[in-house]
């Protein structure tokens, strides 16, 4: 017998000017269960949660919490009524201490207005002990690694003693061990009778941790099923709305001669200690490893975005320095950065400017005046060649979906006619359908004879489209495997070699 619902959201509708972000979505969460919320980016999952949490005001629908109808006007009200949320973006006051962040908005007081540091410290210790989190309460947030900051955020949500806790993509920056830790915490919360709403793109996590799954598409409710009755393929089918038979396009690139040789590359201020490898023409070379193993550092040191301590780089047998990104671009390198929003796009500028920004020199007419016509032509080319879905060239890039933003940036780099493409998590935060298109683009580039180095946290993706995979561990290149005859286990063993 199923228990009565702890939270019922009925027919929630939310309209933004010109868009219906949510159209009559319903969601029921029972106590002591994990309810997964799935859907492609832009399906409306986060919007639904923001309506629950009082960040957005819903246009229609009712929310019933514990038998009472509620309509939170602010996050404060939601928190006070037992609804807490671990936000997708780490929303933290980085210059402040761990415990200042933990109790922000509800500092324990003495005499009405004084904050009691000792009570804060004590309660922080208690919660960390209960959850087995090992973080110094007095440490300044910005000095902690992202995964620890995420654990603090999780501890914070738990500390509200909430009945409903929303986890919005909590594992994107956690290591395997930390994900296990999180699951232990979630199981503990389940035993206490909390209702958990869990948003994630990671299918295996969803199938493991959740009791029920609700799938959304284009702001609409699609299905709610018991997790044990679902398979990965079914979820994808429901999310995408069509059969997605192959997650990866056929691999038909042919690696040729060596174009790039890297020897004993090491970073001056960063954790990259030693990496030597070669890249062939027309090859997709993957880099695997845990978060913090030095994967990104390999790319950014190659590209000159980080300062090198030592090491030699040879392109076509000729030694190059790549001291700065400018120099690297001149030498035919291109880097798609890991954090698209922070270091990839120029959010409020339009598609055209975002496309031509790295290639401005070639649009100079008469030496100083930029030719608008040429820039438009090139942008048109990028929109067509990359299959970018955009209303026009003058659309602000931040209004596009993550996948389309990524395609704009790839288009930007292709205009510079690079020989070596460095792609750092090219499909992060991109929905399933768009991922396929990105994979296709990567393989097409390899077929055209470019060398591609690609960092990814998603092992199936590396195995699916790379030729060889380098595995980083503790800042050192721990090994190299052939993507055709290796396994996730082999890669994980290498990744743990120097941890």
């Amino acid at each position, binding site marked *: 017998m199923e228990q009565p619902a702890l939270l019922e959201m009925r027919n929630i509708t939310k309209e933004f000017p010109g868009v219906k972000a949510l159209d009559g979505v319903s969601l029921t969460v029972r106590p002591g269960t994990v309810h997964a919320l799935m859907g492609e980016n832009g399906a409306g999952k986060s919007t639904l949660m923001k309506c629950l949490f009082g960040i957005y005001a819903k246009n229609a629908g009712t929310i019933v919490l514990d038998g009472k109808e509620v309509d939170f006007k*602010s996050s*404060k009200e939601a928190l006070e009524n037992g609804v807490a949320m671990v936000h997708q973006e780490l*929303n933290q*006051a980085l*210059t*402040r201490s761990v415990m200042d*962040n933990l109790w922000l908005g*509800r*500092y324990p007081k003495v005499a009405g207005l004084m904050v009691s540091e000792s009570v804060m410290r004590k309660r922080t210790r208690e919660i960390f002990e209960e959850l087995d989190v090992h973080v*110094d309460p007095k440490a300044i947030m910005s000095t902690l690694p992202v995964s620890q900051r995420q654990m603090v955020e999780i501890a914070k949500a738990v500390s509200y003693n909430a009945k409903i806790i929303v986890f919005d993509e909590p594992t994107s920056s956690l290591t395997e061990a930390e994900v296990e830790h999180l699951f232990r915490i979630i199981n503990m919360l389940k035993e206490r009778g909390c209702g958990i709403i869990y948003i994630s793109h990671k299918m295996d996590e969803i199938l493991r941790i959740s009791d029920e799954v609700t799938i959304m598409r284009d702001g609409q409710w699609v299905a709610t099923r018991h997790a044990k009755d679902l398979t990965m393929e079914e979820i994808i089918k429901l999310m995408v709305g069509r059969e997605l038979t192959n997650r990866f396009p056929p691999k038909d690139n042919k690696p040729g001669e060596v174009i790039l040789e890297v020897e004993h590359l090491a970073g001056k201020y960063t954790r990259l200690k030693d990496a030597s490898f070669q890249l062939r023409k027309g090859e997709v070379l993957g880099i695997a490893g845990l978060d913090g193993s030095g994967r990104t550092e390999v790319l950014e040191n190659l590209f000159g975005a980080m300062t090198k301590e030592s090491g030699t780089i040879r392109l076509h047998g000729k030694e190059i320095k790549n001291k700065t990104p400018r120099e690297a671009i001149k030498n035919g390198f291109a880097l798609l950065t890991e954090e698209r929003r922070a270091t990839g796009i120029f959010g409020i500028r339009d598609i055209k400017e975002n496309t031509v920004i790295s290639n401005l020199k070639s649009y100079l007419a008469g030496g100083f005046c930029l030719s608008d016509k040429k820039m438009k032509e090139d942008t048109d080319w990028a929109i067509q060649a990359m299959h970018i879905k955009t209303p026009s060239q003058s659309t602000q890039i931040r209004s596009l979906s993550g996948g389309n933003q990524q395609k704009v940036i790839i288009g930007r780099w292709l205009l510079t006619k690079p020989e070596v493409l460095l792609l750092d998590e090219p499909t992060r935060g991109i929905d399933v359908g768009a991922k396929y298109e990105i994979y296709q683009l990567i393989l097409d580039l390899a077929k055209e004879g470019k060398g591609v180095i690609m960092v990814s946290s998603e092992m199936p993706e590396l195995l699916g489209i790379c030729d060889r995979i380098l595995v980083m561990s503790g800042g050192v290149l721990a090994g190299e495997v052939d993507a055709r005859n290796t396994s996730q286990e082999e890669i994980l063993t290498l990744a743990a070699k120097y941890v």
Partner: protein
Amino acid sequence: MNQETNVQEKEARVRQPWTAQRVGDILLNNALLIIMAIAVVYIAIKNPNFIKPASLINILSQTAAYLPAALGIGGCIVLTGTDLSAGRAVGITACISASLLQNAANMANKMWPQIGTLPIPVVIVLAMLIGAAIGCFNGFFVAKFKLHPFIVTLGTQLILYTVLLLYVQQGNNKGMAISNLDPSYTGFVKGSLFSIGGTPIPNYVLFAIVLTAVMWFVWNKTTFGKNMFALGSNEEAARVSGVNVFGVTVGVFALAGAMYGFTGFIEGARIGSNTANTGLNYELDAIAACVIGGVSFVGGIGKIRGIVIGVVMLRLIFVGLTMVGVPQDLQYLIKGAIILFACALDMRKYLVKK
């Protein structure tokens, strides 16, 4: 467990070898204090009067006069903002304080002959309330319309100047300097309860000490203070944690305004002859003191101690340079150089090398 790690960390720090790099870092991180010490020693050798009580108390008094406004503006900077209206707010409150505390014995020179000399506490409260109202106005526009404080307070600064120009033409004043102050007023501010080495210490030094203590308490020990830092560090995080962002923003500006009001009350008596130009550019000195003292424009970072050091340093340089005969013209260059140097050093701490 955590205490253990703390102890271990401390031990690790102690055990660190004294490499050239580490010595260099320590020197750079304390460069400002070191330079100040060298300057003091140099000036003292060149002109021994510099370290006599009279001169030291002069520096102390000047610091006390400029400190409250800097303490107020510090909060605005912690919120990643600034306040350009501070100087005019000081001007208005100085003129109002002075006009309400003129000597009733000399009716002819009194701006408001029909009002007697008001009790001093009433005027202090009034000046601080007027300042706070100006701050609320600023804070409202910043919090409600999400305008950058630079723009809001630029507007307020201009508006206030007109208000100030109109005010000094009211009553019997007709745009003249407001002087003829009541002895009780000047005595309350400039008089002295005790002296060091024969030199009296003016009362406003004591007021500044009390205000500094109060502000330290507000910044470090109250919910309001912690919310202010959190807001300056990450507004969205504060909002989703249930902090009243609007209230805290308005509060920080209002508190700053109250500080300008108090400064106005002090300046009214200290200057003695107040015009529409009283308080001009005070905000720039206050902002300079804050950034020299490490209150970062990045937001969410700053200490009361730093602001005090910043104000002291500016005054020390001015007094000191005058005493060794550096011409006034050159002093601005030196002040500018110190601001650039201090901020460049400060940024060093927050830059992550890649």
